[in-house]
């Protein structure tokens, strides 16, 4: 790395080298049994330079050809964006635990056993279900250094367990699923199995729903499929900067229900998206986004923050390219109402667990519209069965302006969102 940095320094005013190595071991089950074990080794190096004030960028997995990496970066710098930022100098980083040696040492046999136990729990409940499951451990080493003396490095371990089941009766198909991940090893399949079994229980009977406006409870998974995509766009500093975020000029103003609090938090110990530093060497921090319904902040990387005359919030993320602002772990604060109280409050309505295709509409404008892949009808305060052939549409700026209640029990969804259920007084429902 030092060598690449030195070569790049000879060709440009400033340079930054970012290197990630990972060793990933996925154990995969198909049709209720063990199917495939994988071992994936991956190392890649990315070089960002500033030459004559412009950004150049290249990456490679071929560590034997660093001159070409530097030449590629130099070539792109002729056309690159004007660099408005300075690479960070040496910083001190918060102590955030994201590596557990116990995860690294989990033997493959244990991973196989965990997957088999999970499938056994689910098939014991519903013998004719067909499950795919995956048990994965991933050990990641990350290091970055720049010509301003900035340097950050950490190791991370991630262990994850997921199950996706399908139940087919005639031409009727039911899909259920849940996943869990942590930096610590997951030792019991119980929590994932419980969510899946609950979904199967509620879907046992069928129910129909009329086409009209109805109250809807979004479960934590429902919140992620309906609402989160639009929120991520709205609070992205880059979208705010270009004037495309509907809340970009509403900093400090009440836009959402006053019960709503949202923040991004990469500092929690042993969460898969936590880290001491972002991918540009900026120390991690917790960033409030909505405080009591008011827009509190947007999230930024270095370049976007410089253009917006503010500071990076430590949200510079790389996804195989230049850093760009992205959330790490979004958290919605729990409220006071239990899920059962919400259900009990509804005479006729829906519980939405999974909305399919909701992110296809105009999410920039806050619209969501999707097919209810997994959802349940509420009649007189009780869940009576699963609904099908039903679409739900809404707009987050209307829906989140007045929510009926926020649930008291938050859950992690997909490892990157921590949210309770949200009870919306009315959403548009279309059904056949």
């Amino acid at each position, binding site marked *: 790395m030092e060598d690449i940095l030195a070569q790049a320094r000879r060709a440009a005013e400033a340079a930054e080298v970012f290197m990630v190595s990972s060793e990933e071991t996925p154990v995969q089950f198909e049709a209720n049994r063990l199917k495939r074990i994988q071992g994936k080794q991956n190392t890649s190096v990315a070089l960002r330079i500033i030459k004559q004030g412009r950004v150049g960028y290249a990456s490679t997995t071929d560590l034997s050809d660093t001159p070409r990496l530097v030449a590629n970066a130099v070539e*792109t710098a002729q056309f690159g964006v004007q660099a408005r930022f300075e690479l960070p100098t040496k910083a001190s980083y918060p102590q955030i635990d994201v590596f557990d040696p116990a995860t690294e040492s989990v033997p*493959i046999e244990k991973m196989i056993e965990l997957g088999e136990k999970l499938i056994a729990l689910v098939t014991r409940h519903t013998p004719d279900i067909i499950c795919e499951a995956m048990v994965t451990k991933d050990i990641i080493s990350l290091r970055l250094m720049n010509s301003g003396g900035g340097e950050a490095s950490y190791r991370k371990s991630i262990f994850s367990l997921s199950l996706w089941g399908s139940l087919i009766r005639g031409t009727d198909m039911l899909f259920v699923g849940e996943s869990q991940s942590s930096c610590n090893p997951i030792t019991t399949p119980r929590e994932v199995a419980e969510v899946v079994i609950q979904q199967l229980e509620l879907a046992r009977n069928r129910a129909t729903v009329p086409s009209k406006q109805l109250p809807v409870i979004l479960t934590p998974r429902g919140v992620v499929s309906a609402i989160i995509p639009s929120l991520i766009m709205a609070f992205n500093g880059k979208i705010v900067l270009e004037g495309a975020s509907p809340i970009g000029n509403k900093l400090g103003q009440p836009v959402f229900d006053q019960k709503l609090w949202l923040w991004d938090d990469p500092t929690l110990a042993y969460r898969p998206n936590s880290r001491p530093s972002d991918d540009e060497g900026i120390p991690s921090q917790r960033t409030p986004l909505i405080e009591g319904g008011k827009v509190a902040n947007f999230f930024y990387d270095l370049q976007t923050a410089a253009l917006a005359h503010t500071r990076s919030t430590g949200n510079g993320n790389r996804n195989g390219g230049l850093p760009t602002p992205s959330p790490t772990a979004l958290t919605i604060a729990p409220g006071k109402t239990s899920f059962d109280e919400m259900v009990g409050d509804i005479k006729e309505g829906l519980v939405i667990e999974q909305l399919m295709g909701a992110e*296809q509409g105009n999410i920039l404008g806050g619209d969501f519209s999707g097919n209810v892949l997994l959802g349940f009808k509420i009649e007189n305060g009780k869940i009576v069965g699963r609904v099908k052939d039903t679409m739900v549409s809404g707009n987050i700026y209307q829906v989140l302006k007045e929510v009926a209640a926020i649930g008291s029990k938050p859950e992690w969804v997909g490892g990157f969102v921590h949210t309770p259920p949200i009870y919306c007084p009315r959403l548009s429902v279309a059904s056949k």
Partner: protein
Amino acid sequence: MTDIEAIGRQLAEIIKRYSADYIEARLEHSQRGYITYRGKELESIGQATAIGGNVRALVRGGWGFVSFNNLDGLPGKVELAVKQARLVGREETKLAPVEPVVDTVSTAHNPTIKSLAEKKQLLDEYNEIIWRTPKLQTSTISYSDSHKRVIFLSSAGSYIVQERSDINLRLNAVAAGDGEVQQAGLSVGSAGDFKAISALHHQVEQMARRAVELLSAPQVKGGEYTVVLDPVLAGVFVHEAFGHLSESDFVYENERLRQIMVLGKKFGGERLNIVDSATVPGLRGSYKYDDEGVPAAKTYLIREGKLVGRLHSRETAARMGEKPTGNARAINYRYPPIVRMTNTYIEPGEASFDDIIADIKEGVYARNWFGGTTAMEMFTFSAGEAYMIRNGKLAEALRPVVLSGNVFTTLNNIDAIGNDLEMNQGGGCGKGEQVPLPVSNGSPHIRIKKCLVGGR
């Protein structure tokens, strides 16, 4: 620079020393370039080189798969793949037989060697056109190209060197007014030919105007309509709603699904024919051999309304007692091949567009692709453009619509097929974690009775 040909020859010798029912390896060397714009400014420009490989071993029906980009210590990697396969294998190995192939396939185009200045010049022109439109809030342009050389070798004696190129261009315009935001997009691509994306000036202009016009368009009232799909959206429909169901890795170990997808079953009207073919020359989903070294084929999925075929890997073909179709594909060396589509389309019929809409009293004409996803029987896909049809004529423009339905009833509800087949080369297909895979899809205009449209 690393020479993957030399490593390929070594690896072909190494795998002979290990004992498994079957071993194969892929080595890959790729270049990728990309340029993105956000608003008036170029946002990022970069180049990536990747080199890496994998070994896949099969023992008693169990698979081991090892991927790497450190090319040292190859025997250890083969050994690990075989060891993993042994841990998994508990039954009998079944692989459809194919003749070993030794071949070299090169491509006519390599877009990665074209100068960055030339690529940027074209994108600058498109961006200027977009920004000539009043009321525009922002825009994005995302261009990427790639060229790769892949060596496939197997314990059965195959040794195939295959090159592939790909270009993908997406443009998006966002208009704003009165606290409302609307957008319109265009997505195109080619199998590496830069010319295919270099004369879109008129389409780009229309796209930007459409975004602005949507600000004043009404939203459709949700419910059931007779819907006419244009070739682009109908192509997405056939890919999402039916294509994924034809991928037999979903089917082969699922007894109930096998009963639903039984060959000979009627799915649509007699005029409905659906095909997947990697053998059409020059499309994004075209190739000579798949990632298991199986020659590409033209496969009828539906013929005269009946299910007549499906897409296979060597394993799914053997387990279902059918012929392999050459549809096992991996997005790159980090993943094992899985059953995927290539170029999927509805064959043209005889109706003109005017015939198709003539007897519709109130319906929706949905055009252009925005996105689509599926969960076996249920699908949703969204149109980038929509219009009401009233009394056999196109009427007012609508906000973009989301269409949703059940594949089994929807295919049966196709009651008119146009004579104007077009292939759409934009976008890419996702399955599991392997996204995006270059594919194309197409159709003539089609009419669907009783289609569920989401709205207010």
